[in-house]
């Protein structure tokens, strides 16, 4: 069996992710500066575009401080878990159909496995350990409290996330992400693309809110609520180990946006492309571009929200998760199931 092709794809995923994150950090800082009427980074490189690169190099050259009472092996392991989980999630997301490259047709996803979306959920549930262990191993009060709060938050919102996915699965009838995208390329009433955002609006809202909570973005960035917890679970981290937590946060943001696009916004499918008489190669090129544009749009939404809304209080956050999101997601599921069963 051909091992070169997946290897190339794996390296590409890692490289593209890193580049994206570097661009994303820069653009987020510029956008936040714009929103807050500041200038933002503008010294390193043209318009400050190399600022994030400079930050990475700086972090790489910094001292790696491990507190005296900390548990060194676990202290090292925690950021590795975080970044490893964040990076691997991309493996099952399709960024396009098939494309002819260098004379052979290549599927534009790493692995199309039967359990597709469950692989993503399994990795999401592993992400909890990076944060919990970081908090515990540092042996600092702020870290421990931050890590605990954060893991309780993550597992709470994992439930509503899982439940909102079930609504999509009821319609698509498969766990394979490529199949879910295919199911969305039909039309409702002949003109509206059958994207799940139109078919499952409630699930879309609960999923997006849970995605915000899972990626620790404002208004859900309780794990590192500075006024209460200093740095939260990464208070005692320095150098690139701290950088890896930051990196995995941004990778998670990109991956979450890609998942939202795949599950709810039609993935790489381009509405009405089949009426335009384009060659297969052009279509797949447009599909990849569409996927990128959609994902960038969702990322922009995440960034703008971050600089617009204030932070929740912890009890509000848990109330929202357990008393609002969970029942809504469950009710949506029951209603969807009933409608599908009654009208099929």
């Amino acid at each position, binding site marked *: 069996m051909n091992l070169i092709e997946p290897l190339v794809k794996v390296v590409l995923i*890692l490289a593209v992710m890193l580049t994206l994150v570097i661009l994303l950090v820069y653009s987020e800082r510029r956008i936040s500066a714009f929103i807050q009427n500041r200038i933002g980074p503008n010294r390193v490189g043209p318009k400050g575009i190399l600022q994030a690169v400079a930050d990475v190099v700086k972090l790489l050259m910094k001292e790696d401080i491990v507190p005296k009472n900390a548990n060194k092996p676990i202290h090292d392991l925690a950021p590795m878990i975080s970044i490893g989980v964040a990076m691997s999630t991309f493996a099952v997301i399709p960024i396009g159909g098939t494309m002819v490259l260098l004379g052979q047709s290549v599927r534009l996803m790493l692995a199309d496995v039967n359990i597709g979306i469950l692989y993503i959920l399994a990795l999401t549930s592993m992400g909890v350990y990076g944060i919990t262990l970081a908090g515990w191993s540092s042996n600092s009060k702020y870290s421990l409290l931050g890590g605990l709060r954060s893991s309780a938050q993550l597992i709470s919102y994992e439930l509503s996330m899982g439940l909102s996915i079930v609504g999509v*699965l009821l319609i698509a009838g498969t766990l394979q992400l490529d199949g879910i995208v295919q199911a969305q390329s039909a039309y409702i009433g002949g003109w509206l693309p059958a994207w799940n955002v139109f078919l499952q609006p409630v699930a879309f809202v609960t999923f997006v809110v849970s995605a915000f909570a899972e990626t620790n973005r404002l208004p859900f960035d309780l794990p590192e609520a500075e006024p209460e917890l200093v740095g939260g679970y990464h208070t005692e981290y320095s150098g690139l180990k701290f950088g890896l937590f930051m990196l995995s946060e941004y990778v998670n943001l990109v991956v979450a946006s890609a998942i939202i696009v795949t599950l709810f916004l039609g993935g790489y499918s381009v509405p009405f492309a089949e009426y335009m008489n384009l060659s297969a190669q052009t279509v797949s090129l447009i599909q990849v571009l569409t996927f990128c544009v959609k994902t960038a749009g969702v990322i922009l939404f995440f960034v703008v929200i971050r600089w617009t809304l204030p932070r929740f209080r912890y009890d509000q956050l848990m109330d929202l998760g357990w008393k609002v999101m969970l029942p809504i997601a469950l009710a949506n599921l029951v209603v969807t199931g009933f409608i599908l069963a009654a009208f099929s």
Partner: protein
Amino acid sequence: MLESYIPIFMMLGAAALFGLVMVKLNEWLGPRRPSAEKLSTYESGMEPVRTARERFSIKFYMVAVLFIIFDIEVVFLYPWAVAFNELGMMGFVTMFVFILILLVGYFYVWRKGALEWD
């Protein structure tokens, strides 16, 4: 079947390797000038008092237990959703009863105040 998982193993391996290399690279490139103050844990500029690993609120334990139970419920929903087209109305009723029984537990937890955080 197993072949379709090879790329996933490769991805997991590569991502883990990336993390390891980064951490080790930083250890190797960065300076090492430890001092007693630098190595003590941060506590708003005070001398750290006792250990951080104290007992904490039982509510976190409650959340974890409830999470397990509802997670198992959600796990049952995936095969149900995928096979839904073939199961039809019967499948819906089956799952409705299942969810109803668990809802009893959910409201019990709510009434008992296990979901309160103040």
